[in-house]
């Protein structure tokens, strides 16, 4: 362990600020504004200094940075949990404790340090997913100590609803993603082959991108409602003007453009000599597509797919406005009730989900055989 490197020096700034800003906020009730609480008031000076040392240790460059930053992050979370319990002792009946600016700043800084250290080790795809899993497990374990923090109290009050909405959110995001891939890739192949189609298709898809999501939901209510009412069996499948169906269709439409664009770009990037050789050797069009073109275009296509997946996880939040459920339900209920912790209960899992989707998908891309560019 020697000296802080560039990253350590840079992160020292927000980390210091984290101690100078309120660590938590105590509010007399769920929707009142919070009174600032500082770390040294919450846990006492000796502990505060100890925590400062633990948080500062990973700033120094050295082999121990990985375990040190992981330990610091876990400690940070645990301290919040215990500190919250302390604040609630003797407080008003409906009082709530929320993490403050200091906590968030520290969390983000330590998380950056941890992820950077992990990234530098350049782990193999499977190892990356393993790290993600480990991080989630450790996170869940520390959350068990957050019983007195407002977000967890919101969670406990609606546990089954939370997991039901989680399932809906994942289903909506991944389902529309899968549909977009299944239709977008063939569409891209077609557009790449037939030059005349390119402009109209791309223009239409681009135009769709510019429609705000809520407006698109509104546009879909009538046609989907009609289908739900008049097509036999549609209602049973859940197709209707409100709910999952319009959100699914909207997310699917938004996802098409990146997939089609990347498919076209990927196919376009195939060297002419490869295409010529494939044809000249006697592969028929289907064989060329499946054995040569798509495998070679795959990295570009998958990059587009990854963008779409992460986009959909975030966009699915808006689906709550049309009754599709998902984490957005908590976001909008929280907004309506001016309860910021409820909003966080919806927003934070969405962010975590998006991050996890990105890591897993990247790992899949890197596992593909053959080209390592």
């Amino acid at each position, binding site marked *: 362990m020697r000296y802080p490197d560039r990253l350590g020096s840079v992160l020292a700034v927000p980390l210091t600020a984290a101690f100078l800003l309120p660590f938590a906020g105590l509010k007399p009730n769920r*929707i009142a504004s919070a009174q600032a609480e500082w770390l040294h008031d919450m846990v006492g000076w000796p502990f505060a200094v100890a925590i400062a040392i633990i948080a500062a240790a990973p700033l120094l460059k050295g082999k121990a940075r990985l375990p040190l930053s992981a330990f610091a992050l876990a400690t940070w979370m645990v301290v919040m949990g215990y500190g919250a319990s302390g604040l609630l002792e003797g407080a008003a009946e409906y009082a709530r404790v929320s993490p403050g600016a200091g906590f968030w700043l520290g969390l983000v800084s330590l998380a950056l340090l941890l992820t950077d250290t992990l990234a530098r080790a350049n782990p193999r795809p499977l190892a990356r997913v393993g790290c993600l899993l480990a991080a989630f497990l450790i996170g869940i374990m520390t959350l068990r100590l957050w019983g007195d923090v407002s977000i967890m109290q919101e969670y406990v009050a609606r546990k089954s609803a939370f997991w039901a909405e989680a399932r809906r959110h994942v289903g909506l995001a991944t389902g529309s993603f899968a549909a977009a891939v299944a239709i977008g890739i063939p569409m891209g192949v077609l557009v790449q082959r037939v030059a005349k189609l390119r402009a109209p298709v791309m223009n239409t898809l681009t135009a769709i991108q510019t429609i705000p999501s809520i407006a698109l939901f509104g546009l879909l209510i009538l046609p989907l409602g009609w289908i739900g009412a008049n097509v036999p069996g549609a209602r049973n499948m859940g197709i209707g003007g*409100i709910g999952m169906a319009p959100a699914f269709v909207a997310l699917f439409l938004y996802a098409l453009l990146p997939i089609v664009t990347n498919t076209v770009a990927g196919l376009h990037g195939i060297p002419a000599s490869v295409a010529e050789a494939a044809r000249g050797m006697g592969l028929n069009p289907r064989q060329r597509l499946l054995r040569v073109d798509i495998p070679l275009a795959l990295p570009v296509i998958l990059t587009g797919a990854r963008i779409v997946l992460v986009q959909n996880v975030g966009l699915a939040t808006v689906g709550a*406005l049309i009754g599709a459920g998902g984490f957005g339900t908590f976001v909008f209920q929280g907004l309506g*009730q001016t309860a910021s912790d409820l909003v966080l209960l919806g927003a934070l899992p969405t962010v975590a989900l998006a991050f996890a989707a990105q890591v897993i998908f990247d790992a899949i891309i890197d596992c593909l055989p053959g080209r390592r560019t």
Partner: protein
Amino acid sequence: MSIIKAAVLMGLLTTGMASGQVVVSSKIDTEGGVLGNIILQMLEANDIPVESRLQLGGTPVVRQALIAGEIDVYPEYTGNAAFFFNRPDDPVWKDAEQAWQTAHDLDLEANQLVWLTPAIANNTWGIALRDDIADEAQVGTLSDFGKWVADGGDVKLAASSEFVNSAAALPSFQSTYGFELTADQMVVLSGGDTAATIQAAATGTSGVNAAMIYGTDGAIPFAGLRVLMDDKQVQPVYQPAPVVRAEVLEEYPQIEEILSPVFQALTLDMLQSLNGRVQVEGVPASDVARAFLADGGFVTK
């Protein structure tokens, strides 16, 4: 012969049963959660098959869904009919009974939607004053308030800029109740968030002791505020009532009598307190609804 009659009767009954569940919905705000759950649990307790699509979205989405038949019933405010039928300046909306009747008649004819018995609570724009000051100055209605301010009462009102500037809001109150607030008697907030105005009055920030509110805001009882009665009916009336599709009501006519006593028990104070438990205490809306129905004897425990 009797076998055929029985078969026909069976057929009629089963077609009735086969037509499915009543889809109960509501808006995504706090009160929507409370009222929606009340409707849902009452119907369920009375053996009507229900499907929950509560907290669906904002007014346009839920209204559209009802008209399209995607949902079957949801609580709507009588005053909103002014906008549905594009008659915002009609004086009928200022009288509770007339407002309800107009909404009922218009919607039945145009959309085959039936407005059922409304709650007494009036969730409209208003002014709330701190309890201690209201007691001391003996102010209970907006008429009292107007006189008190005109006589030099020490008031500071927290309100949104829309409330302050919109002709239908503060200017209307001022002209009807004979008072005028100067610039330093007001604290103007940018958003329309009544939680912020209530909070300001409760903690006395910047000397605020009065707040713009909606009648049934859940934070009011916790903030030590009192809603001042709009005795001269300046604001349109917004009473929540279940609105149900005529087709569904025909199939389950008992819905009217099941919900009527429940909604009549929803006074302003009661609804405030229910909203407050959800918003301020953080109790889930379904639990709050359940307790209300049990305590009121509407549902056997």
